[in-house]
């Protein structure tokens, strides 16, 4: 396929070979970006490895924590007991109310006309009831 001898015209063209060169700035730019001129430090792969290791440490610490018994966990979280405030003592423990102010007596007086329940306040009848029981027991 390749011509064995070159045509004189091809030789003429060859002699007109251009000699233009790229500026040295291109080579300088390439050298700046070259892997062999980069400062040594943790690369991308090293950084990702460190990240994975850190994650593993965190996960391992969490697993260990979940395996501890409750008592041990509680002891870690122990806090000083809080003192309860003493109950407040009311100024008057109980007021002695007269019998009349108690609800039953008041009610009885209100319905006095309809029902004769005067025996409810009659101390002698209570005594009588008591004595009747005593009689039954004999």
């Amino acid at each position, binding site marked *: 396929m390749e011509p064995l001898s070159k045509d004189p015209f091809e030789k003429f063209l060859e002699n*007109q070979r251009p000699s233009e060169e*790229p500026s040295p700035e291109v080579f300088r730019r390439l050298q700046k970006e070259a892997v062999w001129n980069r400062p040594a430090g943790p690369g991308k792969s090293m950084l990702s490895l460190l990240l994975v290791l850190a994650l593993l440490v965190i996960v391992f610490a969490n697993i260990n924590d979940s395996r501890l018994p409750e008592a041990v966990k509680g002891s870690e979280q122990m806090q000083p007991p809080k003192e309860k405030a003493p109950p407040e003592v009311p100024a008057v423990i109980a007021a002695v109310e007269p019998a009349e102010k108690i609800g039953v007596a008041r009610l009885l007086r209100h319905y006095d006309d309809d029902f004769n329940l005067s025996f409810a306040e009659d101390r002698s009848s209570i005594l009588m009831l008591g004595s009747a029981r005593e009689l039954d027991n004999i």
Partner: protein
Amino acid sequence: MKNHNEITEMFEIYRQNPEKGFALIYQTFSGPVFRYLRNSFNLSREEAEDILHNVFLPWVKNPQKFTGIENPAAYLFTSARNAALKKRSQPREQSLTIEPVSHGHEVQVEDAMIINRALSTLPEEQKEAIVLKVWTDMTFEEIARIQQCSLQTVASRYRYAIARLKELIPWNR
């Protein structure tokens, strides 16, 4: 450009010592790739330098990636070609003026300008075939790999281009 054995040796050095190997590779290929970009795709100097930087950037950032490449020279030119085609598909602000390809004698500069004008009239694939074959010493097989076409296609593109340039350039003075 260097011969096949020298290139293989250079890439072996790159595998063993990327810093040293890269300096050799850049020294050998930056010029041809740059000129290929300038002359085949009508790119400005800045555009061609940007692409050149992007083509070589993975070679300095991740040398391990390039240890298994079968034909590193073809790989470099293919990367440059893909980047140039991508760049060209983006809107551009200015039309390009091709600088004289040679410096020195006035006659040579004049010839260079005539050649550039003639080249600019060719279809892009033909122009590429000329630049790669005549000025980069690549074989048709390597050019076919770069252009992703058959050997016959490259050969016919080259012959058409040579015939057309012969008509346009008063070379036999």
